[in-house]
């Protein structure tokens, strides 16, 4: 059989957006100038029907990233082999430029809990996570990117910080990282961390992809700010600033606008991507300048 997706093997270091069914028709008729699309793997694990028909057509014209939300890599049990096999089939079929999953757990005792749940950053957890990431990368025969979470509770008796945990994960497994800048901001506010220090400590050389999303403000029982990673609105200004800070360290990287709830018209989503592209272009400029100075 001929290669179904000979074009677009890799994801460009420009803005992409999360692909939503309400935008299928607009994308196919308008062919917008957008770098790439990302889908949630589990939404395309049905046997057939319109989701696959549309994704085939869109994949023929754009690079694609596949983002898993159900493998529960941070769980106490190894990732479900059947689910991993389904992900392998999806990756074989659509040949994505990037495959990513989460630093989280969502399965317990045969039950799927349908949320990205937090784990304490202990040596024992890290060993287990490394083993699960190894299994996934061997099954897929490729590197995956693991995303930093947004969290609402903290654990007592942890051995290390989130950034140390992720650094060691990449060293031991060779995995890449997906840096969700909104998650950094949400967790920093929720736990009183300094977001700039988090970014300074993050292993930027491993970042294969960046996520940007909107969050919802709330408060906890004591009136302290509690931000919810809602993906239901535009990216907030402090997150754009933090993104700029990240870009000054990484240079341009594939950057996704995630908007999963209260999904707006295509033009609104597209404008967010345009805004990200402007910052990515600036980052490219600085990179070039820095290099010519060095030369």
């Amino acid at each position, binding site marked *: 059989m001929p290669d179904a997706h000979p074009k677009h093997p890799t994801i460009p270091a420009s803005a992409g957006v999360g692909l939503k069914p309400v935008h299928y028709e607009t994308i196919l008729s308008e062919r917008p100038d957008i770098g790439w699309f990302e889908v949630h793997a*589990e*939404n395309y*694990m*049905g*046997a*057939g*029907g*319109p*989701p*696959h*028909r549309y994704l085939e057509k869109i994949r023929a014209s754009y690079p694609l990233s596949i983002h898993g*939300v*159900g*493998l*529960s890599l941070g*769980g*106490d049990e190894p990732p*479900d082999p059947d*689910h991993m096999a*389904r992900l392998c089939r999806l990756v074989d079929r659509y040949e994505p430029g990037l495959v990513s999953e989460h630093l989280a*757990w*969502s*399965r*317990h*005792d*045969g*039950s*799927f*809990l*349908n*949320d990205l*749940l937090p784990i*304490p950053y202990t040596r024992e957890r890290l060993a287990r996570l490394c083993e699960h990431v190894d299994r996934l990368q061997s099954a897929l025969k490729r590197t995956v990117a693991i995303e930093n979470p947004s969290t*609402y*509770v*903290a*654990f*007592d*008796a942890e051995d290390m910080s989130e950034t140390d945990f992720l650094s060691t994960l990449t060293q031991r497994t060779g995995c890449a990282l997906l840096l969700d800048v909104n998650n950094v901001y949400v967790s920093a506010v*929720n736990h009183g961390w300094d977001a700039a220090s988090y970014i300074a400590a993050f292993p930027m050389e491993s970042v294969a992809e960046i996520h940007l999303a909107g969050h919802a403000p*709330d*408060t*906890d*029982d*004591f009136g302290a700010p*509690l931000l*919810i990673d809602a993906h239901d609105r535009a990216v907030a200004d402090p997150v754009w600033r933090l993104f700029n800070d990240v870009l000054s360290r990484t240079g341009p990287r594939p950057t996704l606008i995630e908007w999963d709830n209260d999904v707006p018209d295509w033009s609104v989503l597209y404008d967010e991507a345009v805004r990200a592209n402007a910052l990515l272009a600036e980052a490219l400029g600085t990179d070039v300048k820095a290099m010519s100075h060095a030369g």
Partner: protein
Amino acid sequence: MPDELQSAFAAALCDPDLPPPAPVRSSGKRRFDVYRNNRAVALIDVLADIFPVVQRLVGEEFFRAAARIFIDTDPPRDPVLLTYGAGFGDFLDDFEPAATVPYLGDVACLEWARRDAYHGPDAHSVTIDTLADFPADRLGQAQLTLLPTLHLLRSRFPVGSIWAGVEGVDMKRGEDVAVLRPDMRVETTVLTPGAYGFLSALQDGAPLGAAAQAAAEDSAEFDLAANLQGVFALGAVIGITDRC
């Protein structure tokens, strides 16, 4: 080794009366509640997406309350939520507060069939011309392979008309309904008398002759020629083989 932290975390997630496990730094109720809400709201939204007519019939508030109880009694086991909600119709049949809307469970079964057909396997329908190539003297032995997305529903209520929003329908008249996806569009059709028996027999693998007999037993009004036309017109047939 069983993981106590995750067991206790999962239990507290699904039961708001249980406290979060000890390693979670105590910081009031609202922080842990974010996880409880994320899980429940997302699952209720999944169900609201599959069952819009059920929601229209009972109102959003009732629907979401019923859905919340459903996710407690039948929580998902598979991270692929495309398959979640299959049991919602049966749940509504036994759901006491919905007893005044006795057809609600059947409407849910119809909407589930539409969901399942939407994501089901693709297959190409054949036209009735294919039958012309079949030896006429062996037609009774012809085996019709039906679309993998074909769902047949029999209700003691006019479930297809209720689903379609037809007004002034006789609530005491039952309906048989076929749901199928011949191409990319899911079709929902109220069947004529006998067609349910005919299609059910074909779906069970009966050859044409035996299926026609079963249909005649199902309804005295069954008309084979009209139903053969109808079954092919629906796009329900994907192949014909000789069963000898």
